[in-house]
């Protein structure tokens, strides 16, 4: 009696498995010979493969800092609250969405902390916009769009620091520097500045900024636009000492799950925006300020 029950169960499992496999097969295409119009545009809004159809899901960090995002009061933005189009990345995100054919209401925001962007596996977003620099290693785990912002790293110290007057990389050799974990800012310290003291690494930029205020480190490295917010708002008695030279141009790209065809459509959108001058306008509006000299 028990043997029959087991046998039945096993057969049922096999049947289910076979059915599941069978459902994957495409139905054979009909009317192969009929006239068709030009193949449908894969970037047309209704052709896009999205997490949720009819909706563009965009991810960023929480909080999202100026000049990349800001809320109605000009403060850092919480993506779980009212959406915002303010800030450079806010502007670019909605501009890209509009180019793809989405209305503002069809954009949905989700929170993905910076280092979670790179973990392998399927993503909860259509793309992520969070000052993610392209690198060949990162490109293996994700797909990057073309540049939506060419970026430079900058060194920020307290105005009272002896390193505030640095004019060359050599002047920073004895500085105790800090940066956020897993950023190109950290890489820049190690590869470009090569200080004699090991740099400190922090879980968030805010922790690094706190350490700067406390005097535990002499300087932090962040991307140049972030340094504007840091010196203007977060640490008013800090100054951007200089920008760092880079081997080739570092740039920010929108980040996609590996193999997502949406990337090509977005690249098209970015190209359109660049040609129309939208990116420059946004940069002028949100990332103004006189850039400090490049340290050599």
């Amino acid at each position, binding site marked *: 009696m028990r043997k029959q029950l087991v046998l039945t169960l096993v057969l049922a499992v096999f049947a289910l498995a076979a059915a599941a496999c069978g459902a994957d097969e495409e139905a054979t295409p009909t009317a192969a010979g009929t006239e068709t119009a030009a193949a449908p545009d894969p970037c047309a809004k209704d052709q896009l493969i999205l997490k949720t159809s009819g909706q563009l899901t965009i991810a960023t960090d929480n909080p999202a800092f100026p000049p990349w995002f800001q809320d109605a009061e000009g403060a850092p933005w919480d993506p779980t609250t009212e959406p915002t189009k303010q800030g450079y990345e806010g502007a670019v995100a909605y501009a890209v969405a509009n180019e793809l054919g989405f209305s503002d209401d069809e954009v949905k925001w989700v929170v993905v902390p910076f*280092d979670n962007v*790179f973990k*392998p596996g399927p993503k909860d977003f259509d793309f992520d916009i969070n000052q993610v620099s392209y690198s060949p*290693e*990162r490109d*293996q*785990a994700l797909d990057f769009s073309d540049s939506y912002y060419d970026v430079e790293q900058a060194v920020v110290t307290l105005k009272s620091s002896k390193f505030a007057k640095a004019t060359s990389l050599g002047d920073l050799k004895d500085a105790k520097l*800090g940066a956020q*974990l*897993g950023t190109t800012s*950290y*890489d820049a310290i190690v590869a470009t500045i090569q200080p004699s003291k*090991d*740099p*400190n*690494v*922090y*879980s968030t930029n805010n*922790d*690094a900024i*706190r*350490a700067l*205020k*406390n*005097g*535990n*480190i002499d300087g932090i490295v962040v991307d140049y636009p972030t340094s504007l917010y840091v010196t203007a708002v977060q640490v008013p008695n800090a100054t951007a000492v200089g920008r760092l030279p880079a081997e080739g141009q570092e740039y920010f790209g929108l980040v996609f799950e590996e193999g997502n065809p949406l990337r090509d459509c977005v690249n098209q959108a970015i190209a359109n925006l660049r040609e129309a001058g939208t990116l420059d306008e946004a940069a002028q509006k949100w990332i103004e300020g006189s850039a400090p000299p490049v340290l050599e």
Partner: protein
Amino acid sequence: MRTHGASGSRSTLIALASTVVFALVVVLVVSNSPGWPEVQRQFFNGEFFRESLRVIPKAFLLNVRIFLIAEVFILVFALFIAILRSLPGPVFFPLRALAIVYTDFFRGVPTILVIYLLGFGAPALQISGIPRDELFWGVVALVLVYSAYVSEVYRAGIESVHPSQEAAARSLGLSQAKTLRYVIVPQAVRRVVPPLLNDFIGLQKDTALVALLGPVEAFRQSQIEVASNFNYTPYLVTAILFVLLTIPLARLTDWLVIRDRRRQLALGAAR
């Protein structure tokens, strides 16, 4: 439960055989699972293992340093708290209450909060004379938190020493303080070596929390490796280093326990 003779060795053989079979099945299932090659590449990658071995052990020295320094202070401070807690009589009530509040608070609050509050908060006060060094505050935070746990272990040890020992010592004319110092505490400490070790193993791992304040210790170093390579094998290297650190301490404990058990069992026993 022992079985005797032939049936005993037979059941041992069966146990052994079934363990081997089970292990084989697990290995087969895992290595033939569709995700295995990817998991192996991501977590058990030989190339990244070797690369990590060049940087992570050096960062691990920081964990060892923090652990050794903190441990010494914890052993002393926790004993102080435990003794405060055990002072008898109404005149010492404020001290006892202080000890209770201290242990309740520092056992209750998450260690990570104490690290953040002290490590970023204390230097921010900008009071001259207060050290700024992040390692200093990291160690202070660990000492405060772990002393709360260890003081309770000491207290259990002190209370487990039979009251007749105290009676014998006081009968010789030893004061309460001298009795504690020469008779009670030495016995108490010997009795609680295993739970003390437990807390110290926890401390070894919590040294990684100091990285939140900036210094790069082994776990942070492995995070840096992982962030730049998108491979998780460095975490494996760090895990192995932590486990290796635990083993000598565990064997030392076993030895201490065996050495003292004989002497403890002699207490008051007629032979």
